[in-house]
């Protein structure tokens, strides 16, 4: 088990190197730091000196791979590749283009993101599984049919509409919760209630439909027939057999997102003014702060790969047949 875990983690390294190289190509080869400086400074007052100063302030004035002016090891290290790209492996993201310390921002903004994303994940999973099991119980009736139609309609609505409609109805017309904002401690519940509800609803359609299909596939299997043949009630069959076995494919699809919960949700956070990483990223994109975007993409893939490893581990927990070699 430990050996497997170690090997999995080692295998993640080449993938992360690939991500790193891709980002490097995108940000420094396809478009040069000069372009970034021009975009940041605005088209009007761009002088070559201003560009040089902008680049020097942010450390973009070094050569890409090989610094001929430096001596010794600095020939490698005093380059954009090492300073800006390779250092991300140490989780040292340096300063943003606007001069903010990215690491500090990450560690403070992570928690509001988690406070929103974790309830959405847990409540969403619980509600979706409950509804899917209910539809599986009602299978082939008009209730099931209507439920599936509702799911398809829910799926077809952009998440933006859920947020806008929720904010308008609940916060503005009914005045139940504040429209946006955030507080720490228990007070946060007041601000988070609506975003969590909206987040759950937005993901409901596709998840319920998918889980229902999984449960129906299990219901058609032989062990369910055996369970019925020995006289178990339909509820006992559903909860004791179908739910348990259906959880295996459900887990594969959901465990992978758990680490990414730290990243938060881009649009929900920015609509509700929650000072998490999602808002951070959106602001960076709008301000064209390339250092932050680069850092967030890299962290995103680190967390995703961690999610893949977790998925493998969760297999062994829920399915005793799976053994990791």
């Amino acid at each position, binding site marked *: 088990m430990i050996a497997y875990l170690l090997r999995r983690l080692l295998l993640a390294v*080449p*993938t992360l190197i*690939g*991500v790193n190289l*891709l*980002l490097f190509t*995108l*940000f420094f080869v*396809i*478009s040069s730091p000069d*372009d*970034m400086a*021009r*975009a940041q400074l605005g088209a009007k007052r761009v002088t070559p000196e201003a560009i040089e100063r902008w680049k020097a302030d942010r450390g973009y004035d070094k050569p890409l791979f090989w610094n001929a002016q430096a001596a010794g090891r600095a020939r490698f290290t005093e380059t954009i590749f090492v300073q800006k790209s390779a250092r991300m492996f140490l989780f040292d993201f340096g300063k943003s283009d606007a001069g903010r310390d990215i690491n500090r921002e990450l560690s403070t903004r992570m928690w509001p993101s988690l406070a929103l994303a974790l309830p959405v994940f847990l409540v969403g999973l619980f509600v979706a599984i409950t509804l899917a099991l209910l539809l599986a119980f009602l*299978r*082939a009736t*008009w209730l099931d*049919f209507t439920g*599936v*139609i509702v799911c*398809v*309609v829910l*799926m*077809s*609505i*952009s*998440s*933006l*509409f859920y947020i*806008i409609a929720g*904010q*308008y109805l609940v916060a*503005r017309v009914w005045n139940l919760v504040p429209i946006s904002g955030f507080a720490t401690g228990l007070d946060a519940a007041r601000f988070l209630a609506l975003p969590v509800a909206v987040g759950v609803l937005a993901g409901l359609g596709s998840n319920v*439909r998918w889980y*229902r*299909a999984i449960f*129906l*596939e299990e219901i*058609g299997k032989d062990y369910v027939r055996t369970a019925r043949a020995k006289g178990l009630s339909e509820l006992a069959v559903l909860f004791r057999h179908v739910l348990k076995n259906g959880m295996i494919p459900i887990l594969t699809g959901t465990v992978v997102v758990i680490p*990414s919960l730290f*990243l938060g949700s*881009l*649009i929900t956070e920015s609509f509700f003014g929650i000072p998490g990483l999602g808002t951070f*990223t*959106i602001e960076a*994109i*709008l301000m*064209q702060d*390339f250092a932050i*975007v*680069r850092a*967030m*993409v890299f962290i*995103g*893939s680190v967390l*995703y*790969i961690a999610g*893949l490893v977790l998925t493998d581990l969760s297999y062994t927990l829920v399915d005793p047949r799976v053994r990791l070699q």
Partner: protein
Amino acid sequence: MNGFQVVVLWSDALLALLLLACGAGIAAALRREHLRRAWRAVFANRSAMAALVVLLAYLLVAILDSFHFRPALERQAAASAAPAQYSVEVLSLLDVALARMRTTREDSYSAPFATHAFRKRMIEMPDGTQQRDYPRLQFGGAQLADPAADRGADIARRGLGGAAAGLALWAFMAGALAVFVARGRREPVRRTLGAILGGNTEVAWGAFGWMLLLVLCAGGALFALSGGYHVLGTDATGNDVLYQTFKAMRIALLIGTLATFVVLPLGIGLGLAAGYFGGWVDDLIQYVYTVISSIPYVLLIAAASLMMQLVIEQHAEVFDTAAARADARLVALCVIIGAISWTTLCRLLRAETLKLRETDYVQAARCFGVSGVRIMLRHILPNAFHIVLITLVLEFSGLVLAEAVLSYVGVGVDPTTTSFGTMINNARGELAQDPVIWWSITAAFVFMVALVLAANLFADAVREAFDPRAAALPRRRRVPRESAA
């Protein structure tokens, strides 16, 4: 109109190419019995046929909106010998068809069917005094002498007239369709009509016909009403919202389909190669798609299109019109989306190729000395093509939804392009105003949901018909045909 200059935008050319490819694909499918059978299963699905009508309506609008030209400017009499000057504004056939909607610009917001502006303003009274009141709109309801009294009747008259025209068109089309179907079935038209109404035809023409009726009547009424009113109101700069929604349809369809130009070659080529050759080729391709798919989707698109915006801004002089620049950004966005989302198709095709590689007919072909590329193209790809089709169809609705999010984040289409995303984005502030401005967002909502819902229903039917595994699933359903599962 005195002459015009045809403009072919990149996206127009690509859409035309895509439609040609679709046509070729349909012609090829008609010649093969097993494909014909699968498509018959799709067309027997009532919800799929109803969805098809909606999709075709959107497609028609998108095609009309894809013939672009620049109208010639009025020539001075003295300089008539000089070469014609063309407007910098690029128009499309749709703009000509909806010329009234496009040109009747008010000053600012007005509600649907309004005759007066949404906000009070100082206006000059006939007696010369000034008063703060709601001014009459320049165009909306301008034909009415007494708006308060005549508006209801006028709306009803125009709406019913338009719907009646739609009904007449529908009757003609439905009649032609019935005759066509009856010929195919070699039976009297009356019997065919009975079968269609009873839902007993092999192709679900009934659902198709009813949906067509709905679309034509609604379309007719909308068109007739827009002759006198802003049916869905106007936005902050006084532009007709209905016109904007029509323009957004083309963008939505392009975003959903143009990525295929990148997805198909990469996904098919690399997927087949990885599965067929194995070894280091497989390792390399797997590595590449693991890297790409391990980056969160929106973040990668955001990073890539930020860079793309930089490049386009630096080379602004390449584009002679604003439309061309916005179009370049749209195509670049599609390319980026495609370059990121080919991994799904590649993974699925690789797995299928691994299976097919061991089949007897591929082994036989190999024994005859057929080359690897030929085996992949002649023997493996046709047998795995349903995967390609299903993946593309399923991805469409997701891309339409993604466009809205991307435009909100600021990495989607050009801000000057009207898309569902930019409409929603603008509507954000409108909902916070008092009284609330609800029509822009409602219009975007209704038209976007209609498109995505239709695409989802159609995709489900396609998947059900083409995926052998879905058909083999032991599902005991007593509601067979219209089930959307």
